[in-house]
């Protein structure tokens, strides 16, 4: 439900546009900065999708992103664990962030990383350190 904290064991997927991808293909911390007007960093709740495995989850996430965004060939999807990223930010900086369910009518798995604006540049660097997996945002042919 809206506003519920995601379980620490669960995972989120964040769309990272091409301008946030380093030349070596890694995801830069700028992928976790707020877009103008945003209150939280948007992501997708993977376990909410109830798919059998990560590959299926990523396929579904690609479909969702494709409906909302113009996906570039250099864009990526970053997968993070909710508990790890919140704990790491708190331990490294003393700042608390939280990942909350933010369902939309056309996107029930939508969620958000809240309270990154406290010290956005520092928190984004710390979040980027906890990326577990990356995938191409475009479905490989």
């Amino acid at each position, binding site marked *: 439900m809206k506003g519920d904290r995601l379980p620490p064991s669960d995972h989120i997927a964040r769309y990272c*546009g*091409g*301008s*946030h*991808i*380093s*030349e*070596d293909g890694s995801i*830069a*911390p*700028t992928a976790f*900065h*707020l*877009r*103008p007007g945003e209150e939280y960093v948007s992501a997708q709740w993977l376990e909410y999708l109830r798919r059998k495995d990560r590959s299926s989850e990523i396929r579904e996430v690609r479909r969702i992103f494709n409906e909302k*965004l*113009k*996906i*570039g*060939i*250099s*864009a990526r999807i970053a997968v993070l664990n909710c508990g790890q990223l919140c704990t790491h930010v708190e331990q*490294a*900086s003393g700042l608390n962030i939280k990942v909350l369910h933010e369902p939309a009518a056309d996107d029930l798995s939508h969620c958000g990383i809240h309270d990154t604006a406290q*010290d956005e*540049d*520092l928190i984004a*660097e*710390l979040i980027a350190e906890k990326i577990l997996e990356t995938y191409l945002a475009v479905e490989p042919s």
Partner: protein
Amino acid sequence: MDSQIFYTKDSWFPSDESRDATIPVHFSNERQGDLFVTGINQVIECFDRLKGYGAQSTLWSYLPANTETRQDLPGESSSLMPIDPSEVLTKRYLFDLLDAWRCEVEIYDLVSHIGQSSEIINATRIALRLYQLQEILGEESPDNCDMSSDSLRSFRDFLAFHPRVRYPDITLTPSGNIYARWKSDNKSLLSIQFLPERKVRFVSFIPNRKHANELNRISGNDFVDTVMDTLNRAYGVHNWVME
């Protein structure tokens, strides 16, 4: 170097609007002026297709050194900007033209300026990366010009103050600001986000001198001409950020 855009409007504009308006546009060199005129010409060609909305206006561009260019559409004495008579948009429209020019042309002009520097040791590589980022933005959000020219200007000035800086990892924030990152082998990190007006925000991770495997993590605000001195005095960043 100053140039002026001078335009006239027809009588159906609201009476409280001045019939004639002059907008001063300042260029830092003649090439910028040429680029601006080129850009306006391109806009003229684009809107030539929309001729016939009704209003008449003429855009004049005065360049220094007795150079004068009159931008008239062929076949009509004074048609330039097609305007719906129900909307009074001329002044805003001209500012939109200037914004569009700034957005598209100024970015490339600033990047070119960096790339042509003989003092910045990684000038070409940095410029190529910036061009690449601008292309990526064009692919993913073609309706927006997202690289901030104000941030780019600050980054250019930073490079002018620190021409021997190592080649950084360069990306953009969602606001279009330049974000440069340097990492060393011992987990040290310096990230700088370039803001307008020569301001910067930085993040630095530095190994703690007394506690092995621990990092000091700091963030702050500074300026392009002082940030490296600030961080070098405290943390010796020059050792791994400078060539």
